[in-house]
Each structure stands twice: as structure tokens, then as C-alpha cells.
């Protein structure tokens, strides 16, 4: 590590900035390239695994405070009781034992892109040649809303169990209010899937009153056919869908939710606030100065920030416009991993990367639908674009899709974490 004085000296020397795009000067003796990854979700875990899989000479350090990852994928089935927390909890052990990823159980608090170091909550300084940020999402504040009391459950873990408790607390004939934030947010079909499962759960327990769905968007954001059909047939009389409705404030002491239209009295609720890139991405200045920027602009060939060299952003925090899904986070991580492996070999990134997403959504306790898309790099615009004919939803939810969902999830979990 740097001594303090030496660092000061380097910081004040203009030469350092000039050489900012090059490697740290103190690396001559220990030559293994160092990749540091912040956040071990679907994006970060996949990145750590694949860099080691594809080039075990690269040192990979994963900074993640939690001992295991609790997956949002399938978490709505924990809410209903169909699955338990253990079914969505994935340990990091295999990344270490099978792939040799160093895991630092700590929280990253700051990045120094000039000296290429990350500082952590416990006071460590971790040096990198390439840094990958994969911290997921952060939420906007809503006046009066305390998510530790009224869960968003848009990050899985204790929030998932708090939502389950909300659902169980609905009295017979009571009102459950759910809100959907303005897009883009994590998992486009996710909130609609949740609304269906809340209604299904209440119906099966003979407690169905009303599930009021407040959608800040003008219409259903994903799988419009599937969810409109479910809302107006399967859940007719239970789900009341209100598009163009945004939650402005919450007074949970009196269980009142105020929107741009009116104030609603609820018995239980799930308010999902608007989202943006993880805190660290924002703090590191990776959003740039454009007003209203929420996601980090990156080059989709490598996911390197367009603003800060040698810092890459993958998963929900990045701003290429690809859907924010775990499947897609895994896909981006591989493009980034390949680019890093090539970088350390003195090569340019693959000029034509492809990514894809496939999501299964349970619609009832026995059926599911799916949503899929393939993205390809468009050299003319420099953007990832959906390939024609690949964006589609299942024509109807089926039992077969429900079964496939578990095969898909098992493979996605394994490909990302083990």
C-alpha cells in the first residue's frame, strides 16, 4: 500500500493526472492484474466468477458486506409462502473455493480514481487496475415513507419478510395498496407479477377485498397483454388498476396514502419508490452533471464509464437502456469480463457484443408467463438495441412455464454464483 506522504506527493504532481489512464506506478514487482468488484449481486458475482474462469492469472477481489446474496428473483413466492428464504439465499463460498475470488466482507464507501483505490467502511484501502461497480439500486425518498416500517421489498432479505407480514395482516375484505414507480426501474414486469400474487394469495385465503395498484406510468410497462388480461379476468373485482397515479406522500400512522389524484385509506401496503443507481455510483460522480441523470453512462462494449476511466458499471446501476433484470445483469457482466480479459492482454473489446434477458413471472400459484429479448450492439449509434423479432411475452400463462421458471432460476443462480 501507499505511504501517506508518497500519496500526497503523487497527488500534487501533474504527471500523475497525465498518466491517469495508465497503471499504478508501484506495481512493477507484483505483476498480477487486479480487478476489484463492488457488490456481489447477479452482476458483480458473475463478473468475479467469469474473469477468474477466463483468466485465473487476474486477481479478483469482491467487496460485499453480506455473507450471502438474497435473490429478488423468486422472492414474490417467498411473500406468498410458496418458497422459503433458504430457496432464494445463495452463499458466496463457491466464488472463493472454486474460482479463487478474494472476498472482502465490507462496504465500499469511496473511490479514488486517480490513485485507483477503494476505501471501505472498516478502513481498508484496496488498490485496483480495473474497478467494477455493481451496487444495484437506490431509492428516492417519499415524504412520510419509512421503508423499514412499510417495505418496498425491491431488495430481497428482511424487506421480503416484512412484505409477507403486510400481506398476512390484511383483514378479510380489506384493502391492499401497491405502488409502481416511474420507469425505468428494476424488473419491468416485477410489480405487476407481485400485484397478481397478492390478489391470488388473498383469494385463496378467502380474504380478498381490494388490491389497488397505483402505477406512476401511463400503462403497464411490461407484458401488457398478460397483465391486462390477468387484471381484467383472473383478478376481476379484486385488482383495481390505476395508471398515471403517483404516490406523493404517506402517513402510515393513519394508513393514508396520498397520490396526485386523491388520498386512499389502506389496511396494508407496498410502496415501491422511484429508483436510481446505487449510492456509490452517484457519490463517485459517475452519473455526470446532466440534470435528472439516474443511471451511469457507459460504453456498452466494455461497460467502462464514459466519465471516469478504468471504472466499469454493470447491472441495474448502468444506463445503457437495457432492462434491469438479473438475467441481463449476468449478461452484461460477461461482456465486461471478456473486455477486461482482453484489456489485460492488450486487446480491444469484442466489437459486436450480444446480451439477452429472459424473465419468468408467476401469475397465479400454479401458472407463469415469460418475457424475453435479445440485444445487439449497433455500431452506428454506439447503443445496445433489441434485435427485431426477439422482444416477446408468452401468449398466455401456463403450468408448463411455471415449471420452467424453476429450471431457469436454478441455472441462472448457478451460472452467476457457482
Amino acid at each position, binding site marked *: 500500500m501507499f505511504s501517506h506522504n508518497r500519496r500526497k506527493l503523487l497527488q500534487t504532481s501533474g*504527471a500523475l493526472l497525465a*498518466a491517469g489512464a495508465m497503471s499504478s506506478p508501484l506495481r512493477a514487482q507484483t505483476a498480477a492484474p487486479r480487478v476489484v468488484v463492488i457488490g456481489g449481486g447477479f452482476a458483480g458475482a458473475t463478473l468475479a466468477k467469469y474473469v477468474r474462469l477466463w483468466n485465473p492469472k487476474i486477481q479478483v477481489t469482491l467487496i460485499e458486506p453480506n455473507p450471502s446474496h438474497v435473490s429478488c428473483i423468486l422472492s414474490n413466492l417467498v411473500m406468498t409462502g410458496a418458497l422459503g428464504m433458504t430457496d432464494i439465499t445463495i452463499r458466496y463460498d463457491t466464488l472463493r473455493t472454486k474460482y479463487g475470488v478474494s472476498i472482502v466482507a465490507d462496504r465500499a464507501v469511496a473511490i479514488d480514481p486517480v490513485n485507483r483505490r477503494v476505501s471501505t467502511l472498516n478502513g481498508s484501502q484496496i488498490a485496483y487496475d480495473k474497478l467494477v461497480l455493481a451496487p444495484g439500486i437506490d431509492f428516492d425518498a417519499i415524504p412520510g415513507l419509512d421503508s423499514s416500517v412499510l417495505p418496498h421489498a425491491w431488495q430481497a432479505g428482511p424487506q421480503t419478510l416484512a412484505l409477507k407480514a403486510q400481506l398476512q395482516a390484511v383483514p378479510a375484505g380489506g384493502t391492499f395498496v401497491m405502488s409502481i414507480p416511474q420507469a425505468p426501474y428494476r424488473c419491468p414486469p416485477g410489480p405487476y407479477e407481485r400485484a397478481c400474487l397478492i390478489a391470488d394469495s388473498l383469494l385463496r385465503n378467502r380474504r380478498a377485498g381490494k388490491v389497488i395498484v397505483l402505477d406512476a406510468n401511463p400503462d403497464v410497462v411490461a407484458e401488457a397483454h398478460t397483465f391486462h388480461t390477468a387484471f381484467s379476468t383472473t383478478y376481476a373485482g379484486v385488482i383495481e388498476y390505476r395508471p398515471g397515479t403517483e404516490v406523493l406522500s404517506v402517513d402510515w400512522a393513519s394508513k393514508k396514502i396520498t397520490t396526485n389524484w386523491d388520498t386512499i385509506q389502506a389496511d396494508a401496503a407496498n410502496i415501491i419508490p422511484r429508483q436510481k443507481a446505487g449510492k456509490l455510483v452517484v457519490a463517485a460522480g459517475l452519473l455526470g452533471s446532466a440534470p435528472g441523470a439516474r443511471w451511469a453512462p457507459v460504453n456498452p462494449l466494455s461497460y467502462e464509464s464514459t466519465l471516469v476511466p478504468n471504472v466499469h458499471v454493470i447491472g441495474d446501476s448502468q444506463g445503457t437502456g437495457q432492462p434491469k433484470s438479473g438475467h441481463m445483469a449476468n449478461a452484461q457482466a460477461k461482456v465486461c469480463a471478456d473486455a477486461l480479459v482482453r484489456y489485460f492482454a492488450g486487446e480491444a473489446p469484442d*466489437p459486436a457484443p450480444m446480451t439477452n434477458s429472459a424473465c419468468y413471472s408467476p401469475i397465479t400459484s400454479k401458472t407463469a408467463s415469460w418475457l424475453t429479448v435479445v440485444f445487439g450492439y449497433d455500431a452506428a449509434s454506439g447503443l445496445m438495441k433489441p434485435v427485431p423479432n426477439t422482444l416477446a411475452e408468452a401468449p398466455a400463462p401456463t403450468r408448463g412455464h411455471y415449471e420452467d421458471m424453476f429450471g431457469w432460476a436454478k441455472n441462472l443462480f448457478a451460472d452467476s454464483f457457482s
Partner: protein
Amino acid sequence: MKAHPKHLGRLAALALLLATAAAHGAPPAGRLLASQCAQCHGTNGQAVAGMEKLAGESESEIYGELIKMKANIKPDEIMHRQAAGYSDAQIRLMARYFATGGRTTATSSTGSSTTPSTRPTRRKSHDD
């Protein structure tokens, strides 16, 4: 830029870094493309459960199946939509990668998505 001694030091360090990693340089053709199947079909095509395992299938089998899928997209088949995302040449690269267990010829970054030399052979797949 004038070569300042400090810069030379950095350049030397970078050169060393690159040399170390160069042994694992240009990835085998189709590796990145094929890795995009792994979310469902397992790392290196070794599915863990409930999905078709691609490792060990022949090149013509995988190629033939995917070409057939994208030629006749059935709305209820998620995999047909996936197949529709790739050019014939990309499908060839992925099929060859899985069939050879990743032992395809290394490509530089400009070569990974070019058309492979072998002519596509259309064969009946086990899907027929």
C-alpha cells in the same frame, strides 16, 4: 508527450501487467457469444437442472436446431425468440464452441464475430 522518467516507469509496469496476462490473451472464437446461453443452459453448457445441456452436443445438432427455430418462430416457445437474435454466423460460432468444449481457435477482438470458414451444413436435429 515527452517521456518523463516517471512515465517510463509506469509504461514498464503496464507492459509487465499485459505480458503476464497475454498467455490468456485472445479468447477462443464464440466464447463470449456462447456464454450468453449459460444463464439457462449452464456455465459452459453444463445445465444444472431442468434445461437442455448443450455441452457434448454436436455442432450440426446445435446449429441445425437454432436455425430451424428462427426460421419458424412459434409464439409459445421462448427459445425461438432467443434464436431469432443471432445471425447464422453467430449461431455457427456458438455451436462450434459448445461442440469442441471451448477449443476453438483464438480470435483477436476484430475476429470474434466474423463468418467462420466452414459452410453451414443443414442436418436434422433431434427436435424433428
